[in-house]
């Protein structure tokens, strides 16, 4: 399987040979930043298009068909429209916080995005506490949402922001617990190592029952983290018009929108990295020729394939279920998911200690 470290080391060596070390590091940082932002936007565009087509399929429609072949240019047209829209200044809003909020949200999701293991060696941030870092980075997106609601001087936004505060902070817990279950199984917090271990079998198979429970909890909680139906209360359009981003226009709204989609990508990416083996190909013990054949498929295809499968699952949920009520959302979390998650963590620990994993 292709290891991207060879490519990155080659670039690193080349840069060091043509310029002094600090300049080389700086250049590398710039290249990485540009690549990460470009990838971020490309995935956002792909997902917005995918959402339209998937939703259309669920609703017996065709989706966009007119702009470009199969409607492929529709998203670009939308982005262009968003860019040329006027950015409206709200009277008596807190201008600094109001303008800062969308950037906080995007920043949080961009940093988390950089932690995803796209393929072997193709990962921007890889600490020994990677999982912990992901949790920390993704949770300060809530701050942006709260600030957006608070600073827009709009009562609807305020309600939306308070809802999202309550909801996202609660569900952070379940996400953390289910990830912790997997950390217990893998014995490491470094994302690259977690994926490396899974080349000998994906965790959802190796951890069997507790891993599957953790996966389900993770999908539910992750869905809530991304503010998508059935947990889209912070921006429930039929109740709060648009919730915390009611007062945003043009790219301010655009950034929230992109961040929402990318958060979904990140949730799906983490799910695929932790549960479904990330870039690790399908491995069935005993079938060596099959495993070798699977290794011929590049890691990035495996990763994106799994990620988009999970995204498709999330979209299926989003386009099927009605919205919950805020008290029901919190009841689901605190009375069901958290106790089950804690119990599941215990089961997983016992399984690992007794060696009952596959």
């Amino acid at each position: 399987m292709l290891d991207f470290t060879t490519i990155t080391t080659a670039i690193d060596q080349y840069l060091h040979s043509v310029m002094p070390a600090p300049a080389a590091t700086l250049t590398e940082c710039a290249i990485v930043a540009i690549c990460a932002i470009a990838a971020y936007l490309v995935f956002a565009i792909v997902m917005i298009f995918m959402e339209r087509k998937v939703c259309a399929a669920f609703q017996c429609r065709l989706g966009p068909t007119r702009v470009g072949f199969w409607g492929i240019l529709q998203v670009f047209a939308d982005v262009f429209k968003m860019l040329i829209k006027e950015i409206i200044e709200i009277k008596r809003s807190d201008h600094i916080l109001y303008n800062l909020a969308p950037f906080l949200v995007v920043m949080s999701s961009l940093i988390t995005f950089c932690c995803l293991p796209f393929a072997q060696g193709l990962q921007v941030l890889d600490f020994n506490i990677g999982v912990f870092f992901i949790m920390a980075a993704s949770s300060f997106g809530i701050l942006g949402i709260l600030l957006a609601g608070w600073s827009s001087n709009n009562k609807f936004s305020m309600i939306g922001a308070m809802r999202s505060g309550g909801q996202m902070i609660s569900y952070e817990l379940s996400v953390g617990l289910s990830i912790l279950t997997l950390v217990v199984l893998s014995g490491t917090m470094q994302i690259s190592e977690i994926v490396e271990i899974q080349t000998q079998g994906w965790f959802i198979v190796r951890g069997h029952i507790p891993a599957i429970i953790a996966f389900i909890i993770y999908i539910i909680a992750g869905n809530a983290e991304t503010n998508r139906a059935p947990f889209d209360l912070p921006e429930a359009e039929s109740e709060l018009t648009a919730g915390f981003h009611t007062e945003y226009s043009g790219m301010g709204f655009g950034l929230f929108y992109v961040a929402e989609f990318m958060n979904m990508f990140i949730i799906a990416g983490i799910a695929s990295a932790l549960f479904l083996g990330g870039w690790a190909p399908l491995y069935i013990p005993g079938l060596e020729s099959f495993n070798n054949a699977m290794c011929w498929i590049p890691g990035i295809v495996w990763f994106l394939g799994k990620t988009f499968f999970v995204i498709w699952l999330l979209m299926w949920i989003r386009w099927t279920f009605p919205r919950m009520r805020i008290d029901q959302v919190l009841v689901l979390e605190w009375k069901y998911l958290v106790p089950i998650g804690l119990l599941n963590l215990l089961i997983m620990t016992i399984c690992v200690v007794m060696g009952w994993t596959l």
Partner: protein
Amino acid sequence: MEITFIEIKEFRQTMLVKRGEGFDFLREMVGMDWEKEGLGAIYILENSITREGVELAVRTTDREKPQIPTVSDIWYIAELYEREVFDFYGIEFTGHPDMRRLYLRNDWVGYPLRKDYDPSEAINPVRLESETKEEVHREYEIEEDRHLAEMVEKLKILHYDQYVINIGPQHPATHGVLRFRLALEGEEVRKVDIHCGYIHRGIEKLCESRTYPQTLAFTDRLDYLSAHQNRHALCMCIEKAMGLEVTDRVQYIRTIMDELQRIDSHLLMFSCLAMDMGAITSFIYGFREREKVLDIMEEVTGGRLIQNYNIIGGVQADITPGFASKVKEYCNDQKKRLKEYYDVFVNNVIFRNRAIGVGVLTLEDAISFGATGGTGRASGWACDVRKRHPYALYDKVEFKEILHTGGDSYCRLLVRLEEIVESIGIIEQLIDNIPEGDYKTKTKPIIKLPEGRFYAAVEGSRGEFGVFIESHGDKMPYRLKFRPMGVPLIAAAQKIMKGCKIADLITIGASLDYVIPDIDR
């Protein structure tokens, strides 16, 4: 219709006695201006069990400061009806807890439905500034002689220290331009104050200066989701007054079209409820089938939403040749599709949790509010006009009146979905046997109704739709009043929305299924 006039001094006592006799349903309240004989109101009462009716009226000759005792404590719905009468006729109801205008602006000068009203623009120019908010109830306290009273200012409607938000007039979930002012405590709704009139067009006033055939054009602008039934009611009322019998063919066509319209409306109600809960796929599913109904209607009547099909003495044009086969094809398809709705939405655990036990309207309240239609039947009130006072062919076809007893949002949806099945059943009984004959009866070019008062009601898509005509023998009605289906629903909403969450407020509103142009007229 025979009306008994009651002396104003004995009015409240008589009304209390009538209520005690079991007349628990205030079917309709019509404000009247009889010029020399004074201002007053007509009350059409009905016993919800024996279905026997009585029509009472009261009037006062004082035009400067007309006062009538309130009945809003006897029938809850009278609270809004009396505000409407106050708005249009300036009759102050003594003892009424909240005597504000219902439709017009607070700074409106004069009472538009009075016969001596001056419509000149100098008095009521187009005002460009915002309406001043009235934060106080005005109440008229009843004094010893029970009909004269002084205005006192009572407690504020909403306090400034409450977290007040406006749901509407431009809000995606009010299904039109209705405005709820809510006092919130966290997510909980403490008080609901409903403002109507954003789409008030004064249709009843307009009708007074139109000939009878001209008045027909207004009906489908009321509740656009029961355009057929509305027009049917008005035609029926005029035909009843003229003593005109329509042919069997017309009755068949009218009944079938009414039922198609009902299916259309119920599908929309299902879809919008789903939409308000965020289940957009279910919304599209409902609209997919509704589209087919609209296609059939378009073919027959030429209109998809606003339909001008019924005319006095018949229908505008004969049905198209392929009508029967298309309707049958649609009916078969719809029956299969209904299962999908249950699978994807109605039996969904999230929906059930959000709807069962939410916004419960008790049977007594439903009757007192006069909340007819699916809402009343979900509370267990057999209020279907098709059964109570059969018209057209409803006494000849077999159908079940769907009754549920829960009274919550869930039952309200179930009633609608089950009624779709019943409507399909009715259509299937009729569609193959449409008799030959004229599709309209010839009428005189100028239609004059004999002197008298006439009331006809049909079962609209969301309740009893009634038409009251007082004729003085002219070619134009002296007074034409439509019984709105929506006003009782929002009156009930005001009560059952109290104490629920914002999210539930939206679903309750959607499940009550009101249509704003019908409330505002």
